[in-house]
């Protein structure tokens, strides 16, 4: 699971009003190299919840010097876009779980795939 994907995931457990962002508890993290596409990264940035991305990167130990607030004029800032590229698309959680911030429900991540399925009584 890449952090771009994590940035979109929400917990839908019945009764939960704010299941976002999911906390990440990782036991295995991998970095998979991917070609840098500055246009793609620039286009993704406005769709992101920036705070959730920074927190996720921090929890995994890959925040480095990623700023807490989004920088202005990031489209022209290649160095910044490269950092975002790395946390968004190269850092991958292979094993661990996601935790709903409200209900505490845990969603396992196995071999890189988060399992968001709910039991009948939770849906």
């Amino acid at each position: 699971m890449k952090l771009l994907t994590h940035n979109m995931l929400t917990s839908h457990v019945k009764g939960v009003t704010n299941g976002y962002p999911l906390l990440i508890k990782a036991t295995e993290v991998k970095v998979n190299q991917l070609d840098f596409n500055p246009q793609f990264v620039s286009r993704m940035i406005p769709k992101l919840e920036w705070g959730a991305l920074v927190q996720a990167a921090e929890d995994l130990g890959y925040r480095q010097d990623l700023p807490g607030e989004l920088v202005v004029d990031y489209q022209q800032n290649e160095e910044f876009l490269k950092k975002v590229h790395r946390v968004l698309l190269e850092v991958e959680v292979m094993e661990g779980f996601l935790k709903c911030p409200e209900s505490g429900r845990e969603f396992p991540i196995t071999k890189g795939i988060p399992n968001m399925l709910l039991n009948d009584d939770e849906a």
Partner: protein
Amino acid sequence: MKLKELESCLQQVDTFEEPKILLEQYPTSPHIAACMLYTIHNTFGDIEGKLVADLGCGCGVLSLGASMLDAGLSVGFDIDSDALDIFRRNAEEFEMSNLDMIQCDLCCLNAEVYARKFDTVIMNPPFGTKHNQGIDMTFLRAGLTMAETAVYSLHKTSTREHIQKKAKDWGVKMEVIAELRYDLPASYKFHKKKSVDIQVDFLRFSKA
């Protein structure tokens, strides 16, 4: 990448080992997948550098093809862990890393949280012939919520009028890009004939 190259790459994608009838697990043939993706890429420019969702991705042939055509990232959604396991192995064999997967039930997904997050949605949804009538429309509805630009999907030609009406109700434009003969090999025990051709539309839904 040429169409022929894409198709021959997709021929190496592994598909369902034991397809599950209730999930209507029919693989998208390499030929159909390649033609769909090639058109989406060349005619509409909706793959390269895009964030692509593949709903009901199964073993991932459409996602893998989108990744080969340089999608920024393709994300496959499926309910079945066995199918996703094959998808993951395919991704590893092709050494593709612009791919991700989520195990979830699209029928109870709140698509609103993904509203317009994806550029493009591609899918070969279950057609809803096995006690799950209307499931293709549930997938389509979710896809339309999630996509910023367009949804590409396969549907039985016999349902075209119904889908056209729904598209109008939802305020989206529907185009029939191609009429296909979907060669359904006899993958289940109840299939008496060796293979059956069904008429399928390749549709594009675009948002205003």
